[in-house]
């Protein structure tokens, strides 16, 4: 009896042990396999959230890259090979971005990644790209203060969006009083710091600047809109510079419209509101409010490149109403630049492509030619558009030429002496005063 029960126990022990071990092994194996290296294609990683809070903006960018790859493959691909997109969903979860970036590079062996929207997602994947030495094209306007060897910034730096917009309001609308309203995260904080310094350098007094931050997804704007109204009725021309992010914009504009703040009284210039965001709002009460971008869907080009792009895009997505926007254009430029660089060095080796990219030129969709700079930012035109009743923008002003993106803002104390130069100095944060490359960027 006793021996029997011991045997029983031993048997159960081993059987259960085997079960657990098999389960563990299977899990491990399942994750090990699955990476099949296909040599006849060049893999392109797409790292945009398809679910969660950011899906609202990022899904379009995923479609854009798929569209561009499709177009390129129709032209015969790159270096005689077809391009293959590897799409993952980082689900608006920042640590997941890092995990997926690692997966794309090590498991799927992609040659380049197009991805990220928020600053935090970029910050999250940055160490991964540095460690594994790959290339990221980042297509969204951001706060600047960064120039990394492995990242190419095709969106606007603050000097390519915020400062021209403020200049326009000062000159054209004679604005004397400023409300800087933003969502409380790094991009608005930094942009507002830069703008505050810039406005003060132009002689605007401290009491004529009101800064207001709100949490993500803020939906009750009654108090803030009333405050803006109050601030704006102090006898000086007032404007709102809005760095309010994504979801919070719709209730903000609805409240503005309902409380009767017209663009001709207090114009709002926004840096995060484009065609895509306006597609969710009735824009009739918003006519005249402004946005500053490097691209608008409504821009007419002499060579018809924008019109052709819009048509092809709508055919590809099978949706004749699908709009285009600025971050999409940034991907278009970035993708074209990458293709050119790869063809130039006849290799997809990241080191070679990184060295080849600065100096590469690619046409943008507004009739000009953008150039990749040594600081890994690009040259772009800046447009100010007024919202029209149909959800599109009417360009009311543009910079005479292209503006070169500054990686480091000249308006901030910490960064005014810094430059990024990956060609001559091989350094992203080079202090021109001390002639030293700071930190570990060397």
């Amino acid at each position: 009896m006793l021996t029997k029960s011991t045997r029983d126990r031993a048997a159960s022990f081993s059987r259960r042990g085997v079960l657990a071990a098999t389960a563990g092994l299977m899990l491990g194996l399942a994750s090990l396999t699955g990476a099949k290296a296909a040599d006849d294609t060049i893999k392109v990683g797409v790292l945009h959230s398809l679910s969660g809070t950011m899906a609202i903006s990022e899904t379009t960018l995923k479609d854009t890259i798929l569209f561009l790859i499709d177009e390129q493959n129709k032209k015969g691909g790159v270096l005689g090979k077809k391009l293959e997109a590897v799409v993952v969903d980082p689900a608006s979860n920042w640590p997941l971005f890092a995990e997926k970036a690692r997966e794309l590079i090590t498991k799927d062996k992609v040659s380049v990644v197009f991805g990220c929207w928020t600053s935090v997602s970029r910050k999250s994947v940055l160490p991964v790209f540095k460690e594994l030495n790959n290339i990221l094209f980042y297509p969204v306007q951001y706060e600047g203060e960064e120039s990394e060897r492995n990242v190419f910034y095709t969106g606007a730096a603050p000097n390519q969006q915020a400062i021209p917009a403020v200049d326009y309001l000062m000159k054209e609308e004679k604005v004397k009083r400023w409300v800087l309203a933003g969502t409380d995260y790094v991009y608005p904080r930094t942009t507002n710091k830069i703008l505050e310094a810039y406005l003060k350098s132009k002689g605007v007094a401290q009491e004529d600047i009101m800064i207001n931050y709100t949490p993500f997804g803020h939906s009750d704007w009654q108090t803030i809109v009333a405050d803006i109204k109050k601030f704006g009725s102090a006898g000086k021309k007032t404007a709102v510079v809005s760095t309010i992010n994504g979801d919070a914009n719709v209730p903000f504009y609805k409240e503005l419209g309902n409380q009767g703040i017209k663009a001709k009284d207090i114009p709002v210039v926004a840096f995060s509101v484009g065609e895509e965001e306006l597609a969710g709002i009735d824009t009739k009460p918003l006519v005249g409010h402004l946005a500053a971008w490097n691209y608008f869907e409504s821009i007419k080009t002499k060579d018809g490149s924008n019109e052709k792009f819009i048509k092809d895009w709508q055919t590809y997505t099978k949706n004749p109403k699908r709009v285009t926007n600025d971050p999409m254009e940034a991907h278009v430029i970035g993708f074209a630049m990458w293709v050119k660089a790869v063809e130039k060095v006849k290799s997809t080796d990241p080191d070679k492509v990184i060295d080849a990219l600065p100096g590469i030129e690619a046409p943008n969709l507004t009739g000009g030619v953008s150039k990749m700079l040594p600081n890994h930012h690009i040259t772009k035109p800046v447009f100010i558009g007024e919202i029209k009743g149909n959800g599109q923008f009417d360009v009311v002003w543009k910079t005479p030429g292209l503006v070169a993106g500054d990686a480091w803002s000249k308006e901030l104390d910490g960064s005014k002496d810094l430059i990024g130069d990956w060609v001559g100095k091989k350094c992203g944060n080079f202090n021109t005063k001390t002639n030293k490359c700071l930190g570990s960027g060397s």
Partner: protein
Amino acid sequence: MPTKLSARFCSFVLSLFLIAFALPAFAGPFEDAVAKFANDDFSDTEEAVGVIASSGNKLAFPIISALQDGRLMADPDSKKVYVTGTDGKSIDAATGEAVASVPDSASAVRLNNRLRRSVDAALGSLTLQSPDVGTRLQAAQSVFKSHEETALEAVDAALAKESNKSVKTALGEARAAILLFKSDATEVEKLEAVATLKARGDQEAMALLTGMGDQPPSVTKAAASAISSIQSSLAVWSTVQNAWYGLSLGSVLLLAAIGLAITFGVMGVINMAHGEMVMIGAYTTFVVQEVIRTRYPGLFDYSLLIAVPLAFVVAGAIGVLIERSIIRFLYGRPLETLLATWGLSLVLQQAVRTMFGPTNREVGNPSWMSGAFELGQITITYNRLWILCFTLAVFAILLAMLRYSAIGLEMRAVTQNRRMAASMGIATSRVDALTFGLGSGIAGIAGVALSQIDNVSPNLGQSYIIDSFMVVVFGGVGNLWGTLVGAFTLGIANKFLEPVAGAVLGKIAILVLIILFIQKRPRGLFALKGRAVEA
């Protein structure tokens, strides 16, 4: 009345004619100015507006009002400018002669904000004697805003003829604003102007008084006392305003939470998919509006009225389906309903994302929901007002239903003592399904209202779920009145904290207060009374 009106109109037209003929010397510059519209340059357009408005030409009014409405067409090639009338007929803007058609190369003259302001100011002085009371009032107000000296004569002329009381006041205020800034106005005039503005007593009057620049000492003194009196009255109004905003926020919270008060509060199901029911209601509104837009554009103003019952039915049906397929297996295991409904909320979100796309969908405000009116010194927006009324109505109906209807009685019986109810012959499982459906349906109705002030996106529900739980728990689980009081308390507290602490800190403070409050009253504001040690 018609005779009086037409007589006034005649005199208006006549005076335009008189001015036009009295100043024939301006004909040359007028034509030059009109041609400037064709340059497609904002500063040229502004110059043209200025010249034309002060030219006294009879075409000034049609040209400028056409410019405002986007009916002024300019041909950049021939430099010709045309006015397209509201009736579709066109005239040459420089000569006033009718033309057969506007060439295709012509496009509407573009405006920017600065131009819109000068156009408003120009139209203001041109329409001060318009036959329509509303137009006159608007004209007086835009003159008040621009307060340019050139308009003084027109204001005086209009004031002499004006008989409508409110227009007269507005004109008086416009006159005061002009005089205040007129360098050669007498001290007496300026003192009178200060008094007029003090009587107006709003933000804009204060803005004028603060920004009036150098003035004689007596005027400065009068202005200072006027400013302080306006300020103190505005301070009172700002408290009223905060209270109103608090009520409005509270109504939104209540609306979002009231369905949860049933599914969670009455049935004890921790329904994490509650937010998604709200979202489904909002998307129902979107679909209704989409159908109306394409098929029956005339019905747009009724879209919400149509959407409310539909949203109730759609969300309610989904609720019944959920209860029958999932929840009913989980009664007595409340914490596991949390798990299953959380999974459900992920599925519903993704389903909507797949069906409608991840981007925001446009839900328009019907005309009766847009805009605002002034009550004293505060602005009350119609959409907020309607949402408040709507919320209270929903609450009242729900309460009445639970108290007086047969099904309400059964619901209360089942939630209070299931076995007793069953032995009295109540089909408890049917009542469960209906109760859950009712809660979900009300969440759907909430979605219709929330679509008017918030994004309609797959994330809509997520942004309300936490707040809804806070409201229900704060008010006391199982008590509808608690939910009502809880929602308004939190709303008002939030709005009084926000100006002091800012939006983010205000919200944090509210959360900390809820945590501390629950320590004080572990069963919420209105705890269910009973003798059991454990609920």
